[in-house]
């Protein structure tokens, strides 16, 4: 408790906490849909694109946030297009785009400022990155994501479970896919500077995979993902403060731990039920 009070006495840590919790919540909710649709790699690809866009924007002197949101949204559209068109293999395309944007970002920075700590903080994140504007943007984003999940929950389920059926019953599937892509893009850009380009995709993937170990209903998985994400973020941040470890990496490791616990719980339950029978 004293640790938490101490942490909250620093304004930048409060911002990091608030922004981080909101971003992890959004990432986890959107992540359920992405993971179940086998789009896990899209998040990873987008984070690399975001890194490239940020570095180039910084080098040229444009406003980094709007530019990278725009670029990443475009990339998200493009990647979804590829996935919908089954003739092109999307995993190859994502790998290619990741590498190219990473390369572009690195070349751009080394041509201007050189490889400084800035680059390293993009790659692996920094808790100093959350500005008051970012926190406001995160709040807006999470309001949209939560609203979407609350009011369109059944449609999201239908689109995630079976696009063809949803389309046949008159749901505008493309609209939902685009909406998911745009929201994912914004989430990733916002979270990337704190978590790091290399680590942000874990925020989308881990909570969903963790919850899927234990929960058997879609509702259960969605609710648990949100809770797991927020809990892991808080524990990770506290740990990072206590042991002076990088914030992003600590959160990822806590997520891994949660995954292990859920996995173990599922195994124990399996054995327990097996014995009862």
């Amino acid at each position, binding site marked *: 408790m004293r640790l938490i009070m101490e942490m909250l006495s620093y304004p930048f840590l409060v911002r990091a906490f608030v922004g981080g919790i909101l971003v992890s919540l959004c990432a986890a909710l959107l992540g359920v849909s992405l993971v*179940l*649709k086998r789009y896990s790699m899209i998040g990873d690809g987008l984070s690399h694109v975001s890194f490239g866009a940020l570095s180039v924007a910084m080098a040229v002197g444009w406003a980094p946030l709007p530019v990278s949101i725009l670029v990443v949204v475009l990339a998200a559209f493009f990647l979804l297009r590829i996935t919908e068109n089954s003739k092109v293999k999307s995993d190859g395309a994502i790998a290619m785009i990741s590498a190219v944007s990473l390369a572009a970002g690195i070349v751009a920075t080394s041509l201007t400022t050189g490889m400084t700590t800035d680059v390293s903080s993009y790659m692996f994140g920094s808790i100093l990155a959350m500005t008051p504007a970012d926190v406001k943007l995160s709040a807006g984003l999470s309001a949209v994501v939560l609203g979407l999940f609350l009011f369109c929950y*059944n449609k999201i*389920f239908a689109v995630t479970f079976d696009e063809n059926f949803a389309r046949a019953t008159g749901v505008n599937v493309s609209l939902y896919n685009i909406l998911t892509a745009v929201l994912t893009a914004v989430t990733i850009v916002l979270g990337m500077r704190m978590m790091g380009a290399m680590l942000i995709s874990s925020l989308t993937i881990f909570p969903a995979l963790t919850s899927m170990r234990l929960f058997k209903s*879609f509702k259960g998985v969605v609710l648990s993902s949100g809770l797991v994400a927020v809990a892991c973020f808080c524990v990770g941040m506290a740990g990072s403060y206590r042991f002076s470890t990088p914030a992003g990496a600590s959160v990822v490791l806590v997520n891994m731990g949660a995954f292990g616990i859920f996995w173990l719980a599922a195994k124990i339950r399996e054995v327990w039920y097996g014995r009862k029978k």
Partner: protein
Amino acid sequence: MSALITCSHVDFGYENHDAVVDLTMEVEEGDYFCVVGVNGSGKSTLVKGLLGLLKPTKGTLAVSEELKKTGIGYLPQQTAAQKDFPATVNEVVLSGALSRRGNRPFYSRREKEMALEAMEKLGIQDLKGRCYRELSGGQQQRTLIARALCAARKMLILDEPITGLDPSAIQDFYGLTRRLNQEGVTIFMVTHDVANVVGQATKILHLRQRPLFFGTPQEYVSTPAGQEFLGGGRQTRKRF
């Protein structure tokens, strides 16, 4: 008997090629209608057309007023992602009622009752709270049919329904569709499994872009197209 769907000289196609050409047919109430044909013969395109996801590029497609009101239940081909999807049977079946919801966010009690009814009809009410990914192939199939019935009970469109089922589940499935058909559900099925279907269907359409045959199964077995597809006679090796 009244016609639910009438096609006259209809073409269905995409930007630069027609997948279905000059199709004239009628689906009547109470029909057990089977569409057969090799891969790429336009069967799935036809299904999309009937569901209204694709507009005919030529000809007229008329859907009866009655059917427009009730809608069509659809059983799509299963996707790989569904195999390990965390959702209860209840959640899946209930999602069939989505078309009635419009933009209202939550399901009402009436829709929940309808879902329960559909599950009872298919004998899966005991699986209600079970996880979809833990079911056998046959049980998953029943769940998806219940979902389709929850969407509409007048007519079902089944797209390659027996793919991936084991032999006993296939027999089960045919028994089930026959029962539903006798209870008044019009069945429209796309399939490869001609041999089994000939004994059940009331109408057969053999498609290879153009309709090669349209009529009763009794007539079908004696046509060259039918014999070729049923594997009778020496023509089996000839390529389509």
